[in-house]
Each structure stands twice: as structure tokens, then as C-alpha cells.
């Protein structure tokens, strides 16, 4: 399928979830754009020959940097952007295929899909942790008594 269509659908899908999650106005637009970015980085990493898992890791890191930036510019918690922007990457289909294989008693597929989904989600989780750690290293040490929380 054409890459442009995929990217467009990632954008629309993220925007749709932005509406479901009650994100409004400018924040909705930029959160959805993050979904576009997520899928773009994912496809780019795959084009460089990385595995699905590494691509998921890099895309998640990119999205979280983007979310941190947007949180600063638009004065909102990072979560508002990160939850919506990671939507295209989230292995929801893999999770479904895993459980579907279980229902069909196809245990080989269950193991295969289950492992793929688990590793994919773990790669994303590792990306979240890595990006958050890097950001907190760069950020000033927060002063518990006065600093604003993000």
C-alpha cells in the first residue's frame, strides 16, 4: 500500500482517538500530527533495515521528544500528546490476533503472535522510559516545593 495513504490514515486515526480522549483545539491538531510523525519514523526506520522492534523503539522515542516539546509550547501535560500520538504504533491488532489464535486453539500462532505483541509493546515501553530519562537528565532538577509539575 502506498506510504502516503498509510500516513494519512495514521493522522486520521490519531485525530479520531484525540476526539475520543477529549482533546480540544490546537492540542488536538498537534497530537494528531504526532501520530503522523510516529508512523513516519516507524516506516523510515524499517526502510533503513531495522527490525520491527527497533523501529517501534525509535518511533516511540521520537514521539515522546515531540510530546515534551509540544507540552512546553502549548502548556499541557505530556500525556495529552503522548497518548494520542503513539496510537498508530500501539500493537492493538497484535493483541487481538494473539487472543483470536487462542480462541481458534491455534497454539503455534498464539505463541508467535503473543511473542511479537509482547516484544513490540515492550520495545515501546523501553522507548518511553528511555525518552523520559533523557528528558529528565536535560531538564533542570525539579524543586519539589515550587516547581510546576508537567
Amino acid at each position, binding site marked *: 500500500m502506498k506510504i502516503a495513504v498509510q500516513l494519512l490514515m495514521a493522522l486520521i486515526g490519531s485525530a479520531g482517538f484525540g476526539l475520543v480522549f*477529549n482533546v480540544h483545539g490546537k492540542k488536538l491538531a498537534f497530537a494528531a500530527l504526532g501520530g503522523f510523525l510516529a508512523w513516519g519514523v516507524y516506516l523510515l526506520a524499517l526502510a533503513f533495515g531495522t527490525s520491527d522492534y527497533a523501529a517501534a523503539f525509535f518511533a516511540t522515542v521520537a514521539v515522546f521528544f515531540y510530546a515534551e516539546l509540544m507540552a512546553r509550547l502549548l502548556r499541557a501535560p505530556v500525556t495529552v500528546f503522548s*497518548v494520542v500520538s503513539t496510537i498508530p504504533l500501539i500493537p492493538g*491488532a497484535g493483541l487481538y490476533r494473539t487472543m483470536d489464535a487462542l480462541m481458534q486453539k491455534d497454539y503455534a500462532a498464539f505463541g508467535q503472535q503473543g511473542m511479537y505483541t509482547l516484544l513490540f509493546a*515492550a520495545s515501546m515501553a523501553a522507548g518511553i522510559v528511555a525518552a523520559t530519562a533523557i528528558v529528565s537528565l536535560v531538564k533542570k532538577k525539579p524543586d*519539589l*516545593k515550587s516547581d510546576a*509539575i508537567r
Partner: protein
Amino acid sequence: MDTKPEFTEEYLHCAMDIGEQMLMSGAEVSRVEDAIRRICLSAGASRVDVLSITASIITTAHLVNGKTFTESRRITASANNMDKLDQLNDLCRRICSTHPAPQKIQAEIRQINDGRQYPYWIKVCSYALVSGSFCVLFGGSWRDMIASALIGILLKMLESVIRRRQVNAMLNVLLISLAGGVLSRLSVLSGLAGHADLVSYGNIMLFIPGVAFTNSLRDLFIGDTITGSIRLLESLLQAIVIAAGFTFAHYLF
């Protein structure tokens, strides 16, 4: 320091109310703990111990004179509401910098609780958008996309009807999945769509707890082990129920 108020139980109430609402709006437990701790410290507590899991929050605030206040909350429901989370976060920041009176904070919380929501028709359309776009992303044709979007609309309506009954959450998901499976078969039988499974993929994306699953692993990685385990188990169970619903629907035809 003289601008700081004397710490009273009312401040703990406020902090817990804000934490509770944040958790119910889809905030991470680490964020909730952080918010409660900051509010209590800025209100004059000398030490604050907070433990939050998805189902409950417990806080003890220690005062300089040795007194302690403890409060716990049981959390039963949560749904992502980013606009509310945004406003609560903002309120929390203002409390820490300007120390408003507890009555004022309570008034603001009430205002945030009746915050803006999208009108119903937009919520319905958002389900159609998500279903349609993911159907195409998984390789569906434009006719599959239309079928998936239409079924998304019907499922949203079904969801709002059965949510009102407040039965078991897993039963709700099972009923919706069953309906989704049946409708996708009907869309193929009626000649609208070509692939029932691709049509269903768009609809499944709305209900499959992929975000919760990924976040549960993140919680486990950063050391929120209890929350991570609970969420992991919940999301796996919900995914099984969804698969069971669609599988059963496909056996019917």
C-alpha cells in the same frame, strides 16, 4: 515562608480530590503521586507519603508539630479525558505557586468536573473516523472502510445504551464485540464490504486495550509494579473477552 498557610486537613482533602480526578481521567499513577505530594508540601506539610495504584490512593501528610493526617480513596472507574487532566494539572501548578484557600480550590475542582465535552454527534463521528482509518491501514478497500465506519457508529450507540445500565464492564465489552462480529458478517452478506475480518479490525481498535497493555509494561519498567501487574492482567483479560465475542459471532454465521 510567611505566605504559606498552616497545613490543615482541608488541604489534604483538596489534594486527594485532585489526585482522584486525575487518576480517573487517565493520568499515570506516578503523576498522581507527584501531584498530591507537591500540593501537600506547598501547603506546609513537612513530609508526605503517597501510594497510588489504579484502584486506590493512600496519603499520609506529616506536620512539623508531629501530627499526621491520613486519607485514602477507592477508585473504581477511569476513562481517558485529556482536557480534564490538562486542567487539573494546571490547577495543581497554580496551587503550588499561589496557595489559594481550600474553599477556592474546591470551587475550581467542581468547575473542572463539569468541564467541556464534545457533543454526542462528534463522539459518534470519532468512532467512525477511527474504525475507517484503521480498516484501511490494515489493508481494507474503500468499501470495507465505509462498512467499518458505519459499524463504528452503531457500536458507539450500543455502547452508550449499555453503559447506562452499569452492568459488569467485561460483559459490556463482550456484548459490543459480539455485535461488532455480527454486523461485520452482515456487511459482507449485504454486499457492502468484501472482507469481514478487515472490517472488524477497524472496530476492534476502538475497544482493544492496546494503550493499557503498553502502559502496563511501562509501569512495570519504571517500578510501579503493582499498577503494572494489575493493568497487564486487566488488559489481557479484556483482549480475550473481545476475541471471544468476535469468534462467537463468526460461528453464528
